[in-house]
């Protein structure tokens, strides 16, 4: 429901969209896969590696997170136990929320001055939470925290708003173009595949379409059903690929540019002209999970999605996944290097109404210890937010993991902006009408421009004329 908090459209897993096995996105599927092995193992690792914290912390705090996120659960428990044992006067209560509406419940509680003292939520919400006054600035804590040095500047910038740091991420999102090598081989396409330009993606999709009429050649998210994926995995990479940005250097939102036009034309090409993205990609009840499933099943050729989606494929069918699912970075239209769309993953926030923010912060610090970030990002493949965790040898174990950490250097990140939420609807509208053939790209650009202007005001937007 609150898919705007998600990088994906999994309603009950607002931030750590990672935990979903492809077929059965309930927490239950995960348990059988993880509970016995990895998760408990990593919690055991924690016992020995957590730094010992000050002995003088007191008070009782509640730690909130989405109960559907089973991956993070043992880590939260272990950190809380560790901290409680080294601070006898402190009590830390771990409160897993009921699946399905974590963000709704949390925001309702916060707005009444209630809710957990410290909680996990996606980094997408940083600007809005900061503006609403529901979370406490963490700048003074960060100033005394040596480990903050380990966060790349650009990572820190994604949780900094109006001069303050508001949240501490333990992972950063990264994305890949996944492609089915079996389909590529059959269609006479190269493997490894490294598209040079966005047009190459469509060309490959066309080749698959010719050879395998029954598969979905390419899943490009458009419209409302795609949730946040329409923006993060559809529109944003395309605008960047065509040499544009969403916001200019002065912080004005760009309502029209060659890149925006090219991106929307790409949608028209994909959906209406080449028809390599069948309409039904967007009309199923849950497009993102359906497409992830299709990629695992081999009935989808190309998909742009998060690094964490690889894990369920691997767990369900390791051989097939390693043999048949290839990854590539997103190409650009010119000679700029290929890139990966990034994002702030799960972050810890501290409630303004917390009576024991120091204890809450001690928990955040402990949770973000290097070893903890390594263990967590191995079970739930993301870029560890700390550089000293990302550089750990364990991320060189497999080609996939090393590709994840390597993508940190080519990550496209957006700084927090409260307008991002409005942008989601506006992008859904513009891409949706092009995808369904209801409007030409030019009309969609006008639509995009007028809606952004209406929402943000004339003074906050700029039109970059496109002479083409």
């Amino acid at each position: 429901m609150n898919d705007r908090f998600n990088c994906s459209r999994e309603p009950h897993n607002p931030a750590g969209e990672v935990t979903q096995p492809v077929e059965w996105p309930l927490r239950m599927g995960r348990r059988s896969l993880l509970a016995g092995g990895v998760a408990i193992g990593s919690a055991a690792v924690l016992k020995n590696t957590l730094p010992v914290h000050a002995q003088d912390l007191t008070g009782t705090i509640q730690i909130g997170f989405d109960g559907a996120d089973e991956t993070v659960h043992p880590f939260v428990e272990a950190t809380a136990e560790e901290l409680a044992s080294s601070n006898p006067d402190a009590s830390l209560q771990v409160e897993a929320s009921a699946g399905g509406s974590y963000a709704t419940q949390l925001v309702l509680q916060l707005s009444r001055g209630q809710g957990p003292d410290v909680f996990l939520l996606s980094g997408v919400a940083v600007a809005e939470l900061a503006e609403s006054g529901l979370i406490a600035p963490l700048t003074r804590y960060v100033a005394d925290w040596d480990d903050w040095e380990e966060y790349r500047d650009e990572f820190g910038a994604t949780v900094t708003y109006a001069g303050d740091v508001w949240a501490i991420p333990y992972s950063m999102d990264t994305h890949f173009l996944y492609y089915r090598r079996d389909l590529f081989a059959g269609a006479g396409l190269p493997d490894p595949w490294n598209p040079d330009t966005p047009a190459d993606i469509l060309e490959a999709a066309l080749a698959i379409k010719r050879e395998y009429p029954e598969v979905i050649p390419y899943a490009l998210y458009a419209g409302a059903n795609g949730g946040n994926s329409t923006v993060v995995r559809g529109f944003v990479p395309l605008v960047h690929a065509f040499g544009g940005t969403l916001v200019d250097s002065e912080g004005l939102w760009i309502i029209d540019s060659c890149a925006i036009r090219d991106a929307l034309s790409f949608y028209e090409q994909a959906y209406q002209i080449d028809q390599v993205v069948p309409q039904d990609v967007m009309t199923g009840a849950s497009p993102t999970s359906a497409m992830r499933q299709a990629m695992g099943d081999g009935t989808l050729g190309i998909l742009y999605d998060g690094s964490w989606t690889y894990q369920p494929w691997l767990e369900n069918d390791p051989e097939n996944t390693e043999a048949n699912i290839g990854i590539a970075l997103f190409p650009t239209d010119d000679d700029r290097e290929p890139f990966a769309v990034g994002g702030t993953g799960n972050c810890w926030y501290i409630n303004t109404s917390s009576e024991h923010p120091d204890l809450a912060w001690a928990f955040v610090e402990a949770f973000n210890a290097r070893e903890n970030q390594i263990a967590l990002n191995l079970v739930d493949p993301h870029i560890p937010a700390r550089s000293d965790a990302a550089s750990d040898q364990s991320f060189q174990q497999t080609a996939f993991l090393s590709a994840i950490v390597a993508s940190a250097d080519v990550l496209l990140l957006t700084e927090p902006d409260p307008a991002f939420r409005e942008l989601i609807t506006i992008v859904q509208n513009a891409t949706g009408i092009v995808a369904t053939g209801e409007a030409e790209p030019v009309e969609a650009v006008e639509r995009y421009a007028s809606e952004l202007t209406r929402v943000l005001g004339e003074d906050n937007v700029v039109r970059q004329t496109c002479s083409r």
Partner: protein
Amino acid sequence: MLALTNSPQRHDLLSANESLYRGTLDGFVLSRTSRYLATLIPAAILIAIFFIAPAVWAIAISTTPLTLLGATAGSTEFIGLDNYRTLLDDPDFLKYVRNTIVFTLGAAVIGATGGGLACAFLIDHAQRTGNRLAGTAFAAILLAGICPPVLTGAIWAGILDYRTGLLNSAMSRIGLAPVDWLGRFPMLSVIVAESWRSVALAMIVFTAALQLIPRDVYEAARIDGGSRWSVFRSITLPAIRPVGALVLMMTTILATGSFLVNQVLTSGGTSRQSETIALYAYHVAFTDFRIAFGAAISVVILGITACFALIFLRVGRVPG
């Protein structure tokens, strides 16, 4: 509504229905009947706290910028009709209104009421002619009628799915090309699913009304040489017309406020081809946390529902 059928005489059926519009009977005044008010107190307290108060709050809050997140989080400053202006400025607003009207006409008027009437005729006829399938058909419709909305949406999503759906696999078996139902006909899909579960209410009420028509009245009319049409006009129509108005009103109120089937089935459609105002209010309030704006939208829904309901009540009013 079912109670209308409880009467042994047709006369009561009409008078009870009339009293709904007429309000009080002159012979009874409040003072004589006020002692009955005590029985209403327990229900009234609960309704006042959890039903009326939140609704009144929503109407009041629609004049503020209240959101749960962002700069206006928690703000209840009076901004007059700004939210309503924003709504009118929204280029999609007219689309949502149009969708709502299409959806209400399709699901409540044609689907539920029309479908319910047709099913009632069929089942009444089948019962009168002793067809054993009548009971089974009645049961099937009733079962659909109590299916929870979310489950209805899920079942129809499974049926209409382009690749794995029941309908397309049945069509391919007889050599027809699959159709992307949810993509090409999102509004129709939602109307079908919504009607499917709301036919029952109308069917029960209409069946009850039809069954009250004595058998010999039909026979007498036939013997008199009345054509089918004249029998229908002089006997059947008067029997169903008053309950028809009630059914229309109830199905309309239920349909304009309904969004869960739609949310599960299409989420409003790729380019919002099936986004109704109620679904829009849900998205705005529940997904975006723009509470006051959502409240303004729901006031508009309230207005549209009231218009529909008043029209139907007027149409159904029995002359004289």
